[in-house]
């Protein structure tokens, strides 16, 4: 019952905020979750595959390596996976187009809601420089981990999770263990 009440309480808050002309509140999480779930389901139905993200970053890295040193890229199975053998552009790739859409979709949503502005997001107790450093380190760990697990929160977590994949759920569990285990040590950054 509490769950039910929570689903609808946000609709009222949204109206109050809109009247005050402040950036609007995020949508109710359960409704957004259903929306996201339907998008994922449509992807399965239309394409027979799920959503992803880190694959697009890998394409950029592999294409760069291939540009700088084609020999090295050719000798490495990991890079080779992202370089089409028929000489087509590596950027003519499903995930690359999907991620371009994500960037645009996020921009549309944020701008319509009055949330798009240029700033550095961080907790109140950390300097901007440190935040940049942490973001960079976190990004590097994410990139490495996502490639090791052959997918990130979207590709393995959402997609594998919805498909009830053994690997997907193992991955999800590990992500939460890793994040909750690490959270204490970086708490100054966020809270």
């Amino acid at each position: 019952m509490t769950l039910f009440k929570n689903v609808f309480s946000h609709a009222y808050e949204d109206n109050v905020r809109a009247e005050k002309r402040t950036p609007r509140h995020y949508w109710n999480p359960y409704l957004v979750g259903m929306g996201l779930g339907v998008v994922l389901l449509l992807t399965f139905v239309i394409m027979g595959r799920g959503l992803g993200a880190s694959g697009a970053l890998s394409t950029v890295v592999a294409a760069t390596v291939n540009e700088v040193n084609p020999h090295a890229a050719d000798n490495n199975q990991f890079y080779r996976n992202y370089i089409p053998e028929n000489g087509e552009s590596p950027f003519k790739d499903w995930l690359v187009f999907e991620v371009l859409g994500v960037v645009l979709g996020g921009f549309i949503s944020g701008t319509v809601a009055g949330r798009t502005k240029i700033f550095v997001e961080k907790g109140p107790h950390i300097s901007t420089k440190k935040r940049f450093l942490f973001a960079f380190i976190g990004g590097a760990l994410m990139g490495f981990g996502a490639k090791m697990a052959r997918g990130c929160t979207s590709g393995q977590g959402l997609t594998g999770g919805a498909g009830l994949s053994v690997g997907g759920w193992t991955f999800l569990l590990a992500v939460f263990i890793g994040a909750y285990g690490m959270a204490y040590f970086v708490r100054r950054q966020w809270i």
Partner: protein
Amino acid sequence: MIAPFYKFGYFNSEVGLIVAFVIGIFFGFFLERGGFGSGRLLAAQFYFYDMRVFKVMFTAIVTAAVGLYYLAWIGFLDLNLVYYGETYIYADALGGLILGMGFVIGGYCPGTSGVAISTGRIDAIFYALGGFLGIFVFGELYPSMQSFLNSGYLGKISIPQYFHLNYGFVILVVILIAIGGFTLVEWVEKKLAGKYEEVE
């Protein structure tokens, strides 16, 4: 069965790219609506005081999982043609652990960093640059890690297949776990209300 459409050859891969772009727009839209563009909100779930991201993520997984099961059950969708990653149990676990640590240190994951950048977060640019470096380091180390990465291979396998359980039964268990989880985090959020500065 008529779905997945692409696998039945209703359109070619060029059209698939347009589909990818359109689906991406909706994906990005809902991510932003859910607060996934905000690194502080994403990190908040690891301190239990705002569990919005957890709620969105698990509602999405349950919705899509139920939908997949239902569409397969009515004979609309061939579940065998739906692709998701094959399981390499050790690499999945260790990769997830490393990514989870990166998640709370950096504040984003790959998809959400795209939304964060397009809504103006400068820190997310550093995050993405780090991501490129991490992937490059992985690529350079790939040959020496290959035997580990390919160990524990189980193929494309679902939990019901692995434990020899009924698919619908597992779906039911997942729904029950989700409802239990949601009730729990709602309660925890109330307990911690006002303890930390609210994220906007």
